[in-house]
């Protein structure tokens, strides 16, 4: 019997397990697949502060950014502090970007048009400027999730953090009104608390417990180029449209150019957002649009080959904020899901805050904006 059962071995589940183990709790992580097999394995590894409007999510991102840096010191994955460059196509957009940066209150530098190529030598002509965010970073998300689980198991005593992979949660065990564990395809796992860190499938797990959580998939494609010998792109570079699309409620396709080089030498190109359920069918028009936007931003990419693409399903909630904290409707059940496209970046803070709640410590951030019962009934 564990103190905490974490459902989901993605990056958020791994962070929850790590911080719970660090706080002295015995943890069992349950996943129907392998480590990082869901949305974590389909992400770019964004650890961004630049794309958040001022508010609770930005506070979460800033806390998380600090925690990621500390976690990377344990080894096992690299925290690549590459910095983010948001570029504006027009002077009007540039004014708005600079205004947003001033309100965010995070470290940044407004970059005039003539200085853009000091940051990115291959940027296209005619851009109006940008804002540089030195804290923006990238981790290899699968390695990071696996490393967190390994550190948690290695550092806080053998048996403190156990992994049960290939076990699908099929229901919950209860004692009276209280959740006492999960039923899985490989037997029951009992514990004092259950954390739902099932990401895009968090709504389904919540439904197994009889509570509603409006987490839905928002599909994104990523294009991956051939490995380049010389890095063509140094930072994470994206256009201002990305910020507005992240917060958009549109069900249709939205794209914005997000381009970055990786340590492996490849260039990753995003980002598209569509609400089409769990459909994995590749859309050639979407790939063509992503390529066109990337080439418009970096003309030198024209002769670079795309060698693969993949898609993933961001877990989004109607108000685009994650769900973090105890479920007042069902004692013993906690949630840590619905982080949309920011799950990698927000994972450590999510795990850290939940560990504080589980051990009776006042959390560093106010969790009310993230509470599970905040959604009006009609959206459930």
């Amino acid at each position, binding site marked *: 019997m564990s103190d905490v059962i974490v459902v989901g*071995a993605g990056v958020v589940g791994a962070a929850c397990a790590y911080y719970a183990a660090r706080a002295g709790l015995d943890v069992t992580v349950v996943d129907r*697949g*392998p*480590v*990082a*097999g869901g949305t974590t*394995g*389909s992400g770019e590894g964004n650890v961004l502060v630049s794309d958040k409007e001022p508010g609770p999510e930005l506070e979460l991102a800033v806390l998380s950014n600090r925690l990621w840096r500390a976690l990377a010191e344990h080894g096992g994955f690299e925290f690549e502090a590459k910095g983010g460059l948001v570029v504006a196509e027009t002077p009007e957009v540039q004014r708005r970007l600079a205004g947003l940066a001033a309100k965010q209150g995070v470290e940044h530098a407004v970059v005039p048009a003539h200085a853009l190529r000091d940051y990115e030598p291959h940027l296209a002509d005619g851009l109006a400027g940008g804002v540089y965010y030195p804290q923006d970073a990238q981790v290899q998300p*699968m*390695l990071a999730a*696996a*490393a967190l*689980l*390994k550190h948690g198991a290695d550092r806080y005593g053998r048996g403190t953090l156990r*992994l049960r*992979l*290939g076990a699908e949660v099929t229901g919950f065990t209860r004692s009276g009104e209280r959740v006492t564990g999960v039923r899985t395809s490989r037997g029951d796992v009992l514990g004092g608390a259950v954390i739902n860190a099932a990401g895009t499938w968090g709504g389904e797990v919540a439904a197994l417990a009889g509570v509603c959580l409006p987490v839905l998939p928002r599909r994104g494609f990523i*294009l991956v*180029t*051939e*490995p380049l010998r010389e890095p063509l792109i140094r930072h994470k570079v994206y256009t201002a449209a990305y910020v507005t699309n992240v917060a958009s409620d549109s069900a*249709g*396709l939205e794209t914005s150019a997000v381009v970055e080089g990786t340590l*492996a030498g490849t260039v990753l*190109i995003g980002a598209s957002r*569509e609400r*089409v*359920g769990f*459909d*994995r*069918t*590749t*859309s*050639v*028009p*979407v*790939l*063509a*649009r992503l*390529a*066109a936007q*990337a*080439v*418009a931003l970096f003309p030198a*990419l*024209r*002769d*670079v*080959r*795309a*060698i*693969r*693409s*993949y*898609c*993933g399903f961001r877990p989004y909630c109607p108000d685009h904020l994650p769900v973090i904290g105890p479920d007042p409707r069902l004692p013993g059940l906690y949630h840590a899901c619905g982080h949309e496209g920011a799950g990698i970046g927000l994972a450590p803070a999510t795990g850290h805050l939940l560990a504080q709640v589980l051990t009776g410590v006042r959390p560093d951030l106010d969790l009310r904006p993230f509470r599970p019962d905040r959604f009006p009934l009609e959206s459930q």
Partner: protein
Amino acid sequence: MTDDVARRRGDGGDAAYDLVVVGGGPAGVAGALTAALAGLRVALVDSSARLGGQYFRHPAVPGRASGLERFLRLARALGERADVLPRHQVWSVSREPDGALAVHCVTPHGPSSSPHSPDSAASAGARGERPVVLRGRRLLIATGAYDRPLPFPGWDLPGVLTAGGAQALLKGNGVVAGRRVVVSGTGPFLLPVAAGLAEAGARVLGVFEANRGLGLARHPVLALGRLGEAAGYAVSLARHRVPYLTRQAVVAAHGEREVEAVTVARLDREWNVLATRVVECDTVAVGYGFVPQIELGVQLGCGTRYDVDGSPVLRVDDAQRTSVPGVWAAGEPTGVGGWRLAELEGRIAGRSVVAATRRPQAGCADPGRRPEAGRADAGFRPHAGRADADRTDFGSAAGLVSAAGSASAGGGSRVAEPSGVAGPGRGEVAAGEVAGVWVRRRARWQAFGEALQRAYPVKPGWQGWLRDDTLVCRCEEVPLARVREAQELGATDARSIKLLARPGMGWCQGRVCGYAVSCLAGEPPQPPRRPIAQPVTLGTLSALDGTLDGTLSDLDSPSHSGTPDMEDS
């Protein structure tokens, strides 16, 4: 072609070809020719400069080879009746909103383009490459197979080639792969490779067959009645004093910049090493069977099954139809069985396509044909006449028209389920669509192919040949040790090993290492999910933006395509 994106369509004012065939080997050419002779508008694309596939690969000025002249006649006949597009690499096949299938290709600008004479069309995409989109109502996937390699220490040294690579050098280019050559692996394909090299003047130091010691005289190829061909190889090997040694294999290659020697091991029945010796050589040709190339079918959501040897292949019914309406498959993608089976399957597929065109209401749904297309009734033309369904060969073109026109020839058309081919469970084959005699012959060749797969399995002992530093993935340079580390971190399947350690993330997208990684993960190989089946420049991709039929929001609906039954990242 003045458009940025060359959009090739069937002539006659309609929006799409009746049939697009991907792959110009025996299956693709037979299928395309069968359909073209029946009057269908057909396009065939192939990545090579010349048709032939792996088996009928030939140089620009072809020599004399068994069966090649006949194949070239068929290819010429096809060229007169269909759009044949060599040097076209298909990177995606997708269903368009109107139900047609879009075959996305890239093709080089041609030998004349050079940096000093910039091609005017180059501004559309990238330098040297041009996008071509073919639209078809129906698709025949005839993409063949490639060698299945196994890793071993030193296998990435230059001079180590796949058996098919050595064969391609010889048959397609007239180049002998080396002077002192060792051939190793498993399966009957090693014989023609070794014989070809020996006849071309290479010193073949041995054919090391990892499987059991039947000896050449009792070789299953002989036992199963392929007497002429296999006996020819046997005679050739004997004449050149090439030893054929069973339960032996190359388990390591050595050298500084290229191969200088190999370690040959004697193996037990599970391929564990019993004893070793070193053989000096400059070239190694290795092959452990074949990997059917099915990714285009997987892109479209075609159902798959496992072949006898564990390879995922496309599931087809008696008429070579996949589980996705409007999509046929023939040849190795439906199960490895050699060129004769491939050609037969291609012909059956071609006939089935013709029948579907003529009777759009019968049998399967036909999403490729829109009711409002105006030409819908063109399908109801009189049958060209009944034909001898037992034709064993392509004869004159006239004979083929007749054979292809026999779609409604009724006699003997009660089809038996060939062993090992599960139908897609989507209703029965339209009566008369496939002549019974073809089905029976196909069943015999399939049984033969399956018997070979059973006789030449891959045994698990090869994993013991690897050292910690042996590269499993050549592209991303992932050694065995990193694969094992990923497994310790919680990667319980091949996909998560790929995500954590990067095997299969590189240029070849796991085509070379995929089988080995699956074995190391202890799971059967999954159907390959490669949404971009061939590298395509971002310039080419971006030239497609806004040119595709249908709007992006139309394509947001998932209803137009099947969802692949196996998922990847």
